[in-house]
């Protein structure tokens, strides 16, 4: 995998502050991966994110985007090639949804037809029917719809990299889940590199290919969700991720890892089923609801792909698992 973003010993000290906000961070983000910067407030994760599109200039260290030092490029030009999504969305209230989305294409001087096609394509992509939403004003949108427009606007110039700063932080849990799914779909489909800042551990475990845990301006540990839970490098990582909670581990393991082939076990529960790619955490709640009876895993068409039993889940939670299996994370993500 080529490196999309390379941070090399990045330090940022704000004027008048004794302690650096970012204190010597080195990190490589691979092209096409979704890397979550996870940390408590004040851990420096947002500051670090902003060094990449030069909204913050590092005190020292080097930031490369696609192999080029960002300091060698004018900030405005650099930013047009990097999507940027923030928690407050920041839609332009005096412009329609379509014009908001068209911001970067207009700066890039695309012709009208190409812009219109792109806007419609993107609104469709983020789940907003263009005919219904094109002419709306930001005030006529719900929080979730506004952030969908925010994501469409960030993708408008087709940037290979997307920086997202707590993008779902102001949304309710249901909307957050729906937007996370939409984001994962887009990221997969177009192979975008996404750097995602959040303090939401559950969300991080759910969407991340890798998680970089930050504390007091430094990186504590960078690894896949399963590996972080299995072997937290520091006590802080362990407690932040709640690594002692076995359900937390189950949340990052897809049900396929313990699934038995269908048609073997008798007594499969008639109503309780799990979708493909569901997490073992969901499997546990399904098994609780089924009263312990085995539960079928079904595909989108309702055809059985396998069954899950208490025994098999329990075996997966025994003290030692092969670490290699933890890291591989095969199959689709859990939900």
């Amino acid at each position, binding site marked *: 995998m080529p490196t999309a973003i390379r941070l090399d010993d990045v330090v940022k000290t704000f004027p008048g502050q004794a302690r650096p906000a970012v204190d010597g961070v080195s990190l490589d983000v691979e092209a096409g991966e979704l890397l979550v910067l996870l940390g408590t407030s004040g851990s420096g994760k947002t500051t670090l994110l902003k060094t990449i599109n030069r909204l913050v200039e590092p005190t020292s260290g080097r930031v490369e985007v696609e192999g080029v030092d960002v300091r060698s490029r004018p*900030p405005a030009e650099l*930013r047009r090639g990097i999507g940027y999504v923030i928690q407050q969305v920041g839609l332009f209230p005096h412009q329609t949804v379509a014009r908001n989305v068209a911001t970067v294409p207009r700066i890039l001087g695309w012709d009208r037809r190409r812009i219109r096609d792109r806007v419609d394509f993107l609104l469709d992509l983020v789940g907003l029917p263009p005919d219904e939403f094109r002419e709306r*004003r930001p005030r006529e949108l719900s929080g979730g719809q506004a952030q969908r427009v925010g994501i469409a606007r960030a993708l408008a110039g087709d940037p290979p990299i997307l920086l997202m700063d707590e993008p779902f932080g102001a949304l309710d849990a249901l909307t957050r889940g729906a937007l996370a799914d939409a984001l994962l779909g887009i990221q997969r489909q177009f192979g975008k590199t996404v750097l995602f800042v959040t303090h939401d551990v559950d969300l991080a475990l759910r969407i991340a290919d890798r998680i970089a845990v930050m504390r007091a301006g430094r990186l504590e540990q960078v690894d896949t969700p399963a590996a972080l839970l299995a072997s937290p490098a520091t006590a802080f990582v362990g407690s932040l991720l709640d690594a002692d909670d076995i359900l937390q581990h189950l949340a990052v393991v897809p049900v396929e890892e313990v699934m038995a082939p269908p048609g073997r076990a008798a007594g499969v529960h008639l109503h309780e089923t799990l979708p493909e790619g569901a997490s073992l955490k969901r499997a546990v709640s399904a098994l609780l609801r089924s009263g312990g009876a085995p539960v079928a895993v079904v595909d989108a068409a309702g055809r059985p792909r396998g069954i899950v039993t208490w025994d098999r889940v329990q075996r997966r939670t025994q003290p030692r698992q092969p670490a290699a299996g933890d890291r591989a994370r095969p199959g689709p993500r859990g939900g």
Partner: protein
Amino acid sequence: MSYLVRYWDRVLGLVGEHLLLTLATLAIALALALPTGLLLARVRPLRGPVLGLLGVVYTVPSLALFALLIPVTGLGSASALIALVAYCQLVLVRNVVVGLDGVDPSVIEAARGMGMGAWRRLADVEAPLALPVVLAGVRVALVSTIGIATLAAWINAGGLGVLLFEGLYQDHTAKILVGTSAVSALAIGANVLIGRLERLAWAWAGGRTPPRSEQQPQ
């Protein structure tokens, strides 16, 4: 009333002069206040000194300012314009600064993050969103200029003040009444007209209703 009927062409001419003086004042005042306000919005340390200076100018009584200017620029419209423009600066500059300051910081951050240059950001985002507050300043400046401009007659700059001063010296009540009504009508008309524009601008800038402090005193 009979005065107005007999001399309507003279009154109309004075109204024209008055309007011309007022609008010229506003044009020059805006040409100065917009860049000044923009500078103060960007360079915070300049705010205190510049707004303080404009505040001092604002407190000089208008007749005194006219008198002070006579030795420099003489009698006539030049002196009147300078004084009237000076009075407008405080409210105009202050409202430009407040308007630009009031733009939602997340909107600015999004604009920067997407690679809008500084001028494009000003033209496409900041100016439209600051417009309602700037217009509120224009309304106040225009109404007060219409009022103060009557005193310009005292230094031979014409306008409806001519009628008022003549009325005073000649003890001619009809002239005073006609002059006063005409000035009031202009001021009220300007207030209503710019108030309408303000509401349009608020609707444009995101459909919010104006905050209380920006509503017109009715």
